[in-house]
């Protein structure tokens, strides 16, 4: 498992150095920490600040969703480890525009504890903070325990919706409500062909047989909920989609946004082969697809695997999804955009 790195312990810091240089027009360092980036054209007085974050290893999550019309700052921890409160607090101070802050992050015990601590510290400085914890990973708990599910690639939709609402000067309460609704409307399920390897140990987290795949994996290389024989792309797409549809329970005429996400090591051609099947199946169900995102939007280092996310849309969510934004990983032109 060869890698182009210097020292394993430096990869997070060095790659943040690199992305600050490469995305200089869009991103700036948050003062007082090396683990947070902020939008050059995002935060402004009177606008709710959107602060997102979590462990590193999810590129372009989280920094790739920072920019005008999306998140104002992203805070990154060590690989697969939530950031501590201090950099979250530093980011909170940096992007605070006197309209309060919304923290958005995935539901993992580490993230909840560290963001909670940061929120308390920010409150002590007079910064109002609300939090939306994403729980889109339907494999990670039964529907009646949605609150304990993981937050995974569906994050991207929630960041986009919340960022648009804030850019349109919605109040903190309104941003929180719509972000929570986006989170509630988003369903994700993933599968992996190979386990992930952390850069320091380069050991697989668990063993998957040469003709097996792992269903229902998380984005930190967590094992899935079951293992089965590897199947063809169309069957893999069906397997994920059927589980999602059975929970989302859409009816003919419903509209969705679609994300076919590489967990890092799955190549583009495979993603589009899956996209083909998912689009064909949704068409057969009479479900309209307003937008299709295909690519490595939220990864698990370079794990071979994919996740499928659907967000059920209504008019408000569509308007916010189409609202212009400009970040390293997501650019929406708004009006100019050709067709649907």
């Amino acid at each position, binding site marked *: 498992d060869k890698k182009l790195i210097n020292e394993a312990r430096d990869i997070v810091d060095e790659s943040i150095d690199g992305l600050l240089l490469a995305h200089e027009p869009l991103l700036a360092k948050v003062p007082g920490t090396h683990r947070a980036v902020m939008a050059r054209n995002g935060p402004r007085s009177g606008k709710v600040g959107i602060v997102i974050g979590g*462990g590193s290893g999810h590129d372009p999550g989280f920094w790739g969703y920072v920019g005008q019309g999306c998140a104002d700052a992203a805070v990154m*921890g*060590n*690989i*697969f*480890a*939530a*950031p*501590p*409160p*201090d950099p979250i607090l530093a980011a909170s101070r940096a992007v605070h525009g006197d309209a309060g802050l919304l923290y958005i992050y995935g539901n*993992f*015990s*580490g993230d909840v*504890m*560290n963001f909670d*601590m940061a929120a308390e510290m920010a409150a002590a400085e007079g910064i109002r903070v609300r939090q939306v914890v994403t729980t889109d*990973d339907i*494999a*990670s*708990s039964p529907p009646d325990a949605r609150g*304990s*599910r*993981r937050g995974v690639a569906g994050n991207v939709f929630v960041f986009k919706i919340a960022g648009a609402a804030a850019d349109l000067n919605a109040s903190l309460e309104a941003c929180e409500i719509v972000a929570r609704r986006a989170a509630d409307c988003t369903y994700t399920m993933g599968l992996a062909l190979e*386990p*992930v390897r*952390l850069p*320091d*140990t380069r*050991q*697989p*987290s*668990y063993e998957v047989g040469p003709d097996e795949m792992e269903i229902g994996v*998380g984005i*930190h*290389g*967590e*094992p899935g*909920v079951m293992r089965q024989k590897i199947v063809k792309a169309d069957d893999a797409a069906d397997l994920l989609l059927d589980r999602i549809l059975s929970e989302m329970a859409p009816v003919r005429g419903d509209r969705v946004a679609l994300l076919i996400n590489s967990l890092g090591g799955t190549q583009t051609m495979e993603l589009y082969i899956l996209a083909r099947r998912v689009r064909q199946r949704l068409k057969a169900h009479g479900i309209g697809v307003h937008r299709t995102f295909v690519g490595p939007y939220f990864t698990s280092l370079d794990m071979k695997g994919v996740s499928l996310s659907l967000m059920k849309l209504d008019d408000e969510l569509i308007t916010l999804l189409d609202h212009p934004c400009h970040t390293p990983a997501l650019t929406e032109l708004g009006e100019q955009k050709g067709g649907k």
Partner: protein
Amino acid sequence: MTNLNATQMTELLRIVSMRIDEASAELGALDGAIGDADHGNTMARGFAAVVTACVEAANQDVKAGALLPISGRSFLNAVGATTGPLYASAFLRAGQAFDAQQDIPVDRLPEMVVCFCDGIAQRGKATPGDKTMLDAWGPAARAVTEAQQNGAGPVACLDAALEAASEGREATRAMVASVGRAARLGERSLGHVDPGAASAVIIIAALREGLANLLQGEAS
């Protein structure tokens, strides 16, 4: 020796750091089986930061008691994660039990185990049987209290803690995780040792080893 000064306390934490570091690949593998494989790195980074911070502080002539909150903050800032807040709370609780203006009485050192247990329980709100580090720290804390009541010396108290923690760690095999990352695996977490319980045992063993070294060094 009746008190551990800052240099001695740092030495003790250095041994914890060393033992955690040696076990880091193994802890990572345990976490890989039911979590995200980072527990070894996280604990190693955390205790390395603790040692660095303590060395610096000890050079500035603070008392041993003051190292506890310093350790908590440096652990937290180096790692974040789940274990950052948990061990930060553990150290901070110990900091409340010992006077920051004083060195740490050798006889009371085992109380650190009790404080760690309380701090972790308070922050993480896990209950026994949830398959977490608390299933090692809980029995260890009770063992210390009992041993102290029976008049055991500090090394004997830690021996008792170590034995109880080891049993607790083994007991996690038969538990289905219900908090933390492994909870999403459901029944699939059965049969695996909880990584946080495993690292708890290593910490207790290293404290015992470090204390015994210090006492022996003094005796000879």
